[in-house]
């Protein structure tokens, strides 16, 4: 499986009318590339990530992932596109507290309105082993450490075999060792699947493993 390329052109997103908009004039990310997006707080890193994921719709400009113009998709299509193609990892893990790790991992499948197939169940076991949480699948998130939670979140993000992995400050709530471990996990999984990885971060200590670092203020470095 190959990763999806990402192209952003003249993107502008205004949260509130009258407020300073987020602008990204040009950004191209190749298929299978590992890219870090950095920049000061408020420069629009997360907004850009959300526009690529189709969570936010840009006020103007183009966002293309693979062959798809994300900004032209309907709300329902963008939701389906996220479920089928995107693996999302958040700073605060965003695991549902009332279901266990296994069920959290199955969420993208459940949201598709179906039960996991035998093949998907095998995949979960395999991925959870690689993520080091095989023994934690029946635990609720509150019974996990921060690092374990983020690994569970990565496991969930990979359940739909995404072509594009988007991570928003995935190491922001972790100590440096745990952060590095989670990032390595993401990269390993991306290497295995060929998925493109886009990570938003302001942590300069984790930039080593990326193919490219994009500074959103200068837009490229």
């Amino acid at each position: 499986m190959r990763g999806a390329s990402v192209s952003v052109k003249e993107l502008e997103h205004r949260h509130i009318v009258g407020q300073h908009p987020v602008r990204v004039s040009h950004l191209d990310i190749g298929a299978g590339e590992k890219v870090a997006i950095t920049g000061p707080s408020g420069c629009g890193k997360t907004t850009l990530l959300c526009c690529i994921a189709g969570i936010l719709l840009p006020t103007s400009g183009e966002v293309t992932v693979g062959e798809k113009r994300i900004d032209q998709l309907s709300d329902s299509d963008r939701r389906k596109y996220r479920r089928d193609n995107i693996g999302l990892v958040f700073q605060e893990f965003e695991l549902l507290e009332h279901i266990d790790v296994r069920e959290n991992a199955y969420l993208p499948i459940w949201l598709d309105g179906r039960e996991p197939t035998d093949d998907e169940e095998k995949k979960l076991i395999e991925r959870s082993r690689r993520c080091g949480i095989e023994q934690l699948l029946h635990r609720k998130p509150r019974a996990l450490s921060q690092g374990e939670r983020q690994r569970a979140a990565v496991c969930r993000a990979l359940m739909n075999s995404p072509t594009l992995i988007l991570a928003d400050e995935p190491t922001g709530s972790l100590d440096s060792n745990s952060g590095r471990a989670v990032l390595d996990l993401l990269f390993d999984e991306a290497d295995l699947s060929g998925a493109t990885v886009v990570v938003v971060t302001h942590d300069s200590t984790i930039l080593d493993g990326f193919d490219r670092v994009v500074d959103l203020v200068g837009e490229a470095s």
Partner: protein
Amino acid sequence: MSGPMLRLALRSLSHHKVRTVVLALCIALVGVLPTAVDGLLELYRTRLAARATSTPLVVGAPGSRSDLLIHALYFRGDVERMIPRRVAIEAGESGHGVPVPIHLKGSVNGHPLVGTTPDYEKFRSIKMNRGHWPRKLAEAAFGSKVAKELGIDVGGSIATDVHKLHDLAGSYPLLLKVTGVLSRTGTPDDDAVFVSLQTSWVVSGEIHGHLRIDPEKDFNLVLENQSNHITANAAVVEAVEVTPENEDSFHPHGDPDALPVTAILIDANDDKGATILRSRFRRDESLQPIDSLVELRELLAVVMRAKAILDANSMLVIVATVLLLGLIVTLDVKVREREVQTLERIGAPRGFVARLLFTEIAIVVCCGGLLSLFLARAAIWFVADGPLLLP
């Protein structure tokens, strides 16, 4: 609603156990009163109607018609005035039906003591579970519920209640011998103790028994001595138990046919006989015939008017509860904003979160509703077989 959505909803509900249980309980408590009242009224109506249908014509003294109905059919309450037994004798002699006189003045441990004739057993098609219907003075047949409650059986004995403790001329407790226990009927008969009219009159003081008074020896007990009649004073010891020795000493003062009964049930031969008897009773100003079903309908109409007020109140409580539930759900969505955001970000289909919340609410409402029905059923069962409602 898909399986995964149901599973997510159930997980969320079980995770927030206290909230779920409290909400379900609130709904159950709001629903239980109107449901129970509806069920009880229906039961009440059915049972009353069944009794009234089997006893279409009742005669008593003029006064409250509903009191007479409740008294004669359900053995509750008292009547203002009584009528002489003679009315029953004359009705029987007319050949249009069988009169079943009722004399209801005493009680046994709070249960009504019904003085009547053996015709009552046939009239109500009563089946004896054990023993036989009372044949002699101080014999009693107990309704199934009373027998169970008092732990009494054939061969046992129990005293009647004392009603006029401070009345020198009043009644004394009489020791009853249990000769029979009725099979369960699901009617007020289950809660009553049946004796002969004579026994009931002994209990109410209309008939009494004491040792023979010799005016020569017992001059201190004699109030008045006429040639054929001795009046004893209050110092004479009245019998409180009927024995072979004193059985013959029980006697009324005055005309036996004038002894009172509180009501007469008429088992008319046919409609024509009932009509003839009804018109005969109507002509006598000292009597009041009532058509049980008509009276019952009027009585139920009053109950239904009261129920309408209760229904309006229940409606207001339900509306208030729905509004409060709406508020709780709104606040819950606020509290679960992060969870909702996560689902949306991962790619939850449009309306999924709303459907998920609706599913959760539906489950809680269903559980509350089922609990409400269960509690209402339990309440109806308790009341129907308990002391709170006419059996």
